[in-house]
Structures are given as structure tokens and as C-alpha cells.
């Protein structure tokens, strides 16, 4: 219980108030079970006076709490206090908000662009899951001491009252009474109606934030382009900002992912550490003049994943490097000679005495893992599941076992077409996934049947958005009301994709 008498949870202890805004009050607290600091955002009680807002909070706050991305602040819990105030319990990050950093003006241009790239990654992930931020502004970006950006308050503005914005709102703060957002960052269509909120309105707000980030001022009235104010700013940045701030939403970029890729091309790896660049350079040593490093997607003891740009074709390519002791070379080599619309194209493979590399096409639509915060509708499930099955059937007919089928290896094109990646590659579990490998939890040897089982788990996750693997008892799948509501044939596909105990009837 805090000084204001808010009873939130027995496991959260209030410490002090650390922020206050038009929508909410923020407290620092301690999660007593783990003795770790947390931030508590307690929304205004008036927000729950309307019944529709309460039901919307109950429905959508769960989705917000499920967002899981390195550039989005983690929501640990959510609920409604004994006094009827909605709240979110979030991870506590020590640092400053981007507003303060912009005001200080200490950031290098490459750091500023890297912050924008991180914000775009967070937005792309949330948008792929149907979550619109609605209040993108520097005050909602938290920066830690390593310049890692965290976007705060995804979708929280959604719970604000829908009332007309005050034209006199000159201090740029979000207030109850705004049309869900902050006036200076609001797209023109939102001024007309809050119902016009969309991915494109978030991208408009991002455009304002990005302009402010590179110039230090807001783009008010007839604003000068950033490169006019500072010749060191590349013209490509002007173009990105101009497109984001286009009054006609159809002229704005289609996705945050598109902006991220444009910015990565501008940066040419300027945000990466020299050692990272050196390692990446060694990976493509034979074709160094053909490729330009844009980003390091992943690096660990087993290898690395890089994003390169083909200097001639200007295509983006993913280059995966693995140690020779890792599996996957045979499969990559076979797939290099094959083509299927639902399998990621392998453009080349090579090997030396230590490592092998596989050059693959880059897909803009992200991966299935990033779309599992809510269940798929039946129609889209069947469409994606069919594409997965067609790809797997084709691979099996060509003697290729995947052996590692999981949501992270199902990628999407910008048009939503599914493509399977990483045939034959091992997954290294660092204990992150509770219970180990859900997709082959009996440790069976890789075969057609293990791929079928993995697909069954994957399909179950798509239909239930379950954070747990399917469980079996006495030969029957332990289902819940949500699963039981599926059409029977769909249930049977999931059940038979997995396994049943010998002798039990389907």
C-alpha cells in the first residue's frame, strides 16, 4: 500500500513517486519476491469511468503486456487497483529519457541515427502484432547508459478519453483531453479524429521525433530540412523525414521496418563496434568489395548473423556464419540448387577449415515468433500453416530435414508470404526457454516425424498464443476452452501433428 492508499499487489512495495503526467503517475517500487526494482505506472482513475474503456483495458492490456522486444520496456504485470485505477508494472531502467538527451545535445550524429533505428525496430515489432503506440515522442523513449533505447507506454494512450484536443496545448505534454497523443507529434489526420490512428500516424510521430533528434528543434510551420541546418546530415535523412511528415498518409513509408532499412543503409555500420566490423569483414573477405555491412543481427560462440547490402544490386542479404562443427552446411548446399516459394532462397554457400557461411535473401516482414502475442484467426492460420506444410513437404521430398522448425525460423515477406529458413541449423538453448526444446522435447533423432511434431507445437502456439508448450495426459492433449472452440478438423490436425500414446483413439 502506498501513501495514497493504492493497493496493487502484495509482491510489489512502493518506494517513491518518480514521475507525473496527464495520463498517469509513475512510482518506483520493489518486486519483493525477486528483490528487484520495478516501475509502476498507475493510470488516472477517470479513465475507467467508462465501461467500454474498462473492457478495452482488460482485453488489450494483456496484448501490451505480452510485447517482448529488446527495444520495448518489459511489462511484468498489469491490473486494476482496489481504487479502480488501471496499472502496469514495468522493468525499471536506470537512465534518462530521450527528451533530456536531446536538450543536452551531447549525442553524435551516428548515435542519433542508431537511436532512430532502435525505435523503428520496436515500432515494426509492435505494428506486426497490431499494436499502435499512439504517443511516440522523446519523453516516451528511455535511454540506458549504453545508449540502448527502450520505447515506453505502447498502446497506453489508447485508454485515454476520446475528447477533442485543445489547440492551446503549447507545452507539448500529453493530457487527458488530448486526442490520444501529444499535439506536436500528432499526424494531421488524428487532429480530425482519433479514429484515424494507424501505423502511418505512428510513423508521422516518429518523423517529428527524428527531426527533433537530429536538429534539436521541432518541425513547426514551414520547417527547414535537417541538411540545410547542418550540412553533415546526409540528404537521405531529409528524404526519410519528408516522407514521414507527409500530410497525406498514403505517401508516408509503408512500415517502420522500411525506415529502419533506409537508415541502416545511411549508417553503413557506423553504430557498430570496430571489433564487430572486423569479424564481419573476415566473414566476407573474398567478396569484401561486393558487400557492405549494415548491421550485426546476432553474434555468439557458435557463429553470427549479419545484414549486408549488395553494392551492385542494392539488395539486402543475410549472411550466416557457423563454425564447422555446427550442422546446416549440407542443407544450405542442397537448398542453393533448389527453389520453393515458401523456402528462404539460399544465394550462396562457402566453407573454409573453420567456418561455413550461407548467404540468404533478406525478408522484410519479420518472423513468426514476433507475431505470437495473440492467436491467429482460423483463415490466416490455415493460409500460413498450408504454406509451411508445402515447404516442408518439398524439402522432405528432396531429402532435407529441417530439424529445427520453430517460430523464429518462419519468416515473412512484406506481403505476408511465409518462408522457412535455417534448414539443418542447430538451435543452442541457453536456458532461456523454460523446459528446454519444446519442439523436440523428447530428444528424438531428427527425422520427418520430428519435423511434423515441431510443426504441431508451432500450430498450437499460433492458434492459442500460448506461452507454454502443449501438454499430454493419458494420451490426450490437455486443452483449454479456447482450443475446444476450434473446429474439430483443426483440433485433429494439431493432435495428429503431435503424438498420442499407443492405443488411444483419435
Amino acid at each position, binding site marked *: 500500500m502506498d501513501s495514497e492508499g493504492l493497493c496493487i499487489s502484495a509482491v510489489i512495495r512502493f518506494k517513491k513517486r518518480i514521475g507525473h503526467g496527464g495520463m498517469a503517475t509513475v512510482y518506483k517500487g520493489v518486486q519483493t519476491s525477486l528483490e528487484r526494482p520495478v516501475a509502476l505506472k498507475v493510470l488516472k482513475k477517470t479513465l475507467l469511468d467508462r465501461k467500454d474503456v474498462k473492457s478495452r483495458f482488460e482485453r488489450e492490456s494483456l496484448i501490451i503486456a505480452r510485447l517482448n522486444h529488446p527495444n520495448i520496456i518489459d511489462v511484468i504485470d498489469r491490473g486494476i487497483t482496489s481504487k479502480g485505477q488501471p496499472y502496469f508494472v514495468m522493468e525499471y531502467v536506470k537512465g534518462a529519457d530521450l527528451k533530456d538527451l536531446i536538450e543536452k545535445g551531447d549525442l553524435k550524429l551516428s548515435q542519433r541515427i542508431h537511436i532512430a533505428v532502435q525505435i523503428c525496430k520496436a515500432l515494426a515489432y509492435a505494428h506486426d502484432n497490431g499494436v499502435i503506440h499512439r504517443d511516440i515522442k522523446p519523453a516516451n523513449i528511455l535511454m540506458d547508459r549504453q545508449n540502448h533505447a527502450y520505447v515506453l507506454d505502447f498502446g497506453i494512450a489508447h485508454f485515454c478519453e476520446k475528447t477533442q484536443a485543445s489547440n492551446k496545448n503549447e507545452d507539448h505534454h500529453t493530457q487527458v483531453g488530448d486526442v490520444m497523443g501529444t499535439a506536436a507529434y500528432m499526424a494531421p489526420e488524428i487532429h480530425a479524429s482519433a479514429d484515424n490512428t494507424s501505423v502511418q500516424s505512428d510513423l508521422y510521430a516518429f518523423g517529428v521525433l527524428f527531426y527533433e533528434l537530429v536538429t534539436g528543434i521541432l518541425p513547426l510551420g514551414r520547417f527547414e530540412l535537417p541538411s540545410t541546418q547542418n550540412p553533415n546530415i546526409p540528404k537521405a535523412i531529409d528524404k526519410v523525414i519528408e516522407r514521414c511528415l507527409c500530410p497525406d498518409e498514403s505517401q508516408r513509408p509503408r512500415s517502420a521496418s522500411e525506415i529502419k532499412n533506409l537508415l541502416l543503409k545511411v549508417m553503413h555500420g557506423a553504430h557498430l563496434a570496430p571489433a564487430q566490423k572486423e569479424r564481419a569483414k573476415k566473414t566476407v573477405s573474398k567478396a569484401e568489395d561486393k558487400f557492405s555491412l549494415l548491421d550485426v543481427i546476432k553474434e555468439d560462440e557458435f557463429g553470427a548473423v549479419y545484414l549486408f547490402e549488395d553494392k551492385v544490386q542494392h539488395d539486402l542479404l543475410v549472411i550466416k556464419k557457423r563454425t564447422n562443427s555446427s550442422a546446416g552446411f549440407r542443407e544450405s548446399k542442397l537448398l542453393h540448387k533448389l527453389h520453393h516459394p515458401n523456402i528462404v532462397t539460399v544465394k550462396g554457400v562457402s566453407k573454409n577449415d573453420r567456418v561455413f557461411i550461407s548467404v540468404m535473401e533478406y525478408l522484410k516482414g519479420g518472423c513468426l515468433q514476433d507475431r505470437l502475442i495473440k492467436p491467429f*484467426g482460423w483463415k490466416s492460420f490455415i493460409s500460413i500453416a498450408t504454406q509451411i*506444410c508445402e515447404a516442408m513437404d518439398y524439402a522432405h521430398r528432396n531429402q532435407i530435414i529441417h530439424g529445427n522448425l520453430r517460430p523464429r525460423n518462419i519468416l515473412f515477406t512484406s506481403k505476408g508470404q511465409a518462408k522457412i529458413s535455417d534448414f539443418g541449423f542447430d538451435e543452442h538453448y541457453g536456458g532461456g526457454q523454460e523446459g528446454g526444446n519444446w519442439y523436440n522435447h523428447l530428444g528424438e533423432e531428427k527425422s520427418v516425424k520430428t519435423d*511434423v511434431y515441431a510443426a504441431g507445437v508451432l500450430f498450437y502456439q499460433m492458434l492459442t498464443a500460448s506461452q507454454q508448450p502443449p501438454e499430454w495426459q493419458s494420451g490426450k492433449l490437455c486443452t483449454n476452452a479456447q482450443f475446444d472452440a476450434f*473446429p474439430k478438423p*483443426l483440433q*485433429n*490436425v494439431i493432435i*495428429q501433428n503431435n503424438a*498420442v500414446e499407443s492405443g488411444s483413439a*483419435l
Partner: protein
Amino acid sequence: MQLNPEARYSGFFEVLADLKAIKIGRKPVQSSKQDVATMGDGQSKAGFPFVLGGVVLLALGTSVLLYSTGNGPRVWEYLQLSAHDAIIWMESLKESFLGK
């Protein structure tokens, strides 16, 4: 837990056959390995004409009853309300068929 891999599909061609047999919101579907089943909580789209006919007959019956009891002027009001309710009901039924 003893799982029996033998009971699984033997390949993705079988999964594909079952997936392709599923038709959301249409006729009863036949799974390659399962009994006939229907979508949308067992309700069939074939029932729509009967539902619609029932609503129209109900509206007509109501109007005849009201005229006969001297409440003629209120007939259209009743009809309007009934039709409105029927449309909302049918919309929800349609949504459940489409699996939304």
C-alpha cells in the same frame, strides 16, 4: 508421458490434405482421417433461408395480431424493431460462421 511417434502424420502431405479439406464458414468438411465435422459450432449455412423465412413470418404474424387487437398504427414500429433485431442477430451469426 509416453508419446508414440507412430501415431503422428507420416509426412506433411497428410497434414496438407487435412488442412486443405478444412473450409471455414462453408459446407460440412471432411478430414482425410476424421469423421465429418462442421464449422461454427456445428451450425450449417444451409439453415439461413429457414431462419430468414421464420423472421418474415414472425413479423407478418405480429402485424396481423396487432391489427386484430386495434393496435394497427403501432405495427410498423414493431416491424421496424423486429427487423432491426433480426439484422443484428444475423450479423452475429454470420460473424460466428466466418470465425471472427
